[in-house]
């Protein structure tokens, strides 16, 4: 028996509420591409990627058409390149980045992530060469995204690496100053980075993975927002609707969204003969109207995003999303929760502009959501040590709370509070975020060494 009401609800979700599969990301191992010299290694890398991903984009498009659900992005994630390029030097890594860029263009994907290293316990010479290559590698390529994991709950935080991050980010922004410092938007610093996150810029094909895998990132903040609005409209009497019912609505809507993503993902996986990995059900906003996570805050009861209650709201939202998604999918992974990337969400950006949302509030919100301080444009004049220290705070949150946190900060050269920056497309736009207590953290950053792992991680 057909249920018209259920059918119509699903149709609305897809046609009107911006339900989409945000990304299908193919993870490819490059570990055995390492050869005697960098040229041969690059050749093998290029062949490996075209071998696996030759039909990737066309398959995604075909399945997207069959089901009528857009697959917005097709992406590739590779093994953290510092492992692949063990023994290579800075210039070699730039060459590898260019090869990866060319391969991404040849197979037609939007972005390729995995220009990364994992240095939570210590840095090899290769890691140092890799870090040194980041600014030039990202400046000279279009589609490459880079990341680095500098801390874990088990190992603590590598403070030497942390100290380098501020400098790296500043250099990245300076070297791409003509694009508003866009280079820094392609580099994320992580604590507890997952090996199967399909979203950029932090996607990698973890060392623990097999040769290739397909991960799907679903999204749909618009779907959640509209579902909540409908529920609220049906209960106009004050007191007739309680918070747990709203949480339930989020959970059930997330269930449906996740199921759609899994359907597409498994169909692509079957068609390509590549194993299906995980569904990452993250509410990932875009600058498009109606596709905002920030909007959900207002629907759930704060007049300004960043007002008291915002952290509690986000905690509930993040948790409800996880619950609905976990029941919906056989394998859930990646980040899975709510994202708060300032530049990518028109309403979050607006809240920064009118002063309701500050860095400190964002930081507290990262304790309860999936990512961290993401896509935040700061004044170009902020010094490297302050940037490192902001990252240190974010890393500590992740380390202590056994969750993934990250920082993607963009010090926009030549711009200050009151100015705007725009990167266009999915990367969005926002006003410059004011930073307090600039230049007061250098002595802390100068120590180096290690921020020890928390006691609760010693579970042996």
């Amino acid at each position, binding site marked *: 028996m*057909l249920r*018209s009401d259920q*059918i*119509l609800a*699903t149709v609305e979700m897809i046609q009107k509420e911006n339900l989409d599969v945000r990304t299908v990301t193919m993870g490819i191992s490059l570990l055995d591409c390492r050869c005697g010299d960098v040229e041969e290694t690059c050749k093998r890398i290029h062949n490996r990627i075209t071998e696996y991903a030759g039909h990737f984009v066309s398959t995604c498009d075909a399945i997207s058409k069959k089901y009528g659900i857009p697959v917005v992005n097709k992406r590739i994630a590779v093994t953290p390149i510092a492992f692949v390029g063990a023994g290579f030097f800075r210039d070699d890594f730039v060459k590898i980045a260019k090869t990866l860029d060319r391969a991404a263009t040849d197979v037609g994907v939007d972005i390729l992530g995995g220009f990364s290293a994992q240095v939570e316990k210590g840095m090899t010479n290769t890691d140092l060469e890799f870090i040194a290559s980041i600014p030039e590698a990202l400046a000279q390529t279009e589609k490459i995204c880079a990341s680095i994991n500098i801390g874990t709950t088990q190992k603590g935080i590598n403070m030497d690496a942390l100290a380098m991050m501020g400098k790296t980010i500043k250099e990245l922004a300076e070297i791409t100053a003509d694009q508003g410092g866009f280079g820094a938007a392609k580099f994320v610093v992580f604590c507890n980075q997952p090996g199967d996150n399909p979203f950029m810029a932090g996607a990698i094909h973890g060392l623990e993975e097999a040769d290739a895998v397909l991960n799907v990132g679903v999204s749909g903040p618009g779907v959640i927002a509209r579902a909540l609005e409908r529920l609220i409209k049906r209960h106009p009497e004050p007191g007739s609707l309680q918070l747990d019912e709203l949480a339930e609505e989020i959970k059930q809507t997330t269930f*449906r969204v996740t199921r759609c993503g*899994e359907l597409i993902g498994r169909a692509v996986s079957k068609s390509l003969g590549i194993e299906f990995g995980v569904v990452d059900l993250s509410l990932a906003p875009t600058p498009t109207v109606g596709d905002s996570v920030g909007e959900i805050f207002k629907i759930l009861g704060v007049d300004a995003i960043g007002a008291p209650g915002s952290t509690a709201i986000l905690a509930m939202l993040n948790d409800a999303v996880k619950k609905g998604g976990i029941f919906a999918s056989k394998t859930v992974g990646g980040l899975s929760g709510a994202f708060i990337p300032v530049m990518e969400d028109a309403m979050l950006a607006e809240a920064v502009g009118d002063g309701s949302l500050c860095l400190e509030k964002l930081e507290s919100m990262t304790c309860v959501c999936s990512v961290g301080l993401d896509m935040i444009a700061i004044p170009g004049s902020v010094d490297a040590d302050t940037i490192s220290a902001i990252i240190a705070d974010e890393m500590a949150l992740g380390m202590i709370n056994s969750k993934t946190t990250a920082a993607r900060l963009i010090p926009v050269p030549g711009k200050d509070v009151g100015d705007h920056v725009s990167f266009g497309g999915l990367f969005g736009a926002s006003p410059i975020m004011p930073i307090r207590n600039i230049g007061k953290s250098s002595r802390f950053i100068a120590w180096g060494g290690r921020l020890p792992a928390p006691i609760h991680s010693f579970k042996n």
Partner: protein
Amino acid sequence: MNKQMIISVMSKDRPGIIADITGAIYQLGGDVADLNQTVLCGYLTMILSASFEPQVTKEDLLAAISHIKTSCKFEVSIKELNPDQDKEDTGPPEETYILTVQGPNKAGIVHGISSFCYSHNINIFDLATTLQNDQYTMALQLDLKNCQSSLAALQQELEAYSQQSGLTIMMQHNDIFQVTNEVTLH
């Protein structure tokens, strides 16, 4: 070899209709295999399939049913099935789609859509309609197996039909509705 019959019954709804009809079948030694019924505007319609001993005839069954004491007259139609008629239920095939149609209520909506399907060699598996505040909604489960047009061409023609008829029409693969509304995946 048992005889298979398809029986269709329509009558004003009252308690006990299914008991009465299946009672008549039972008296004749019949075995009900499948039954589908719906009530619309106070009228019940039922279609069922039952198997009987080979000597039982359509007329025997008609007679048995006409003997039922009932205040509301039964309108009955019976077909004897050929023994080699295929009656497998394998679930919707790969090319099953759900069409939704919405618009202000007016004459000819169902006819128009079903004619569109017919002209494209599309079979309608199931159909449900609702009318609310003069807004007519129709959901159809379609079998595109024998449709000659490509999916893209079909979508375009539906778009054109939608413009011309003033109805909102959308078509989506059946799997989406199944995965989003059912707990257990098949």
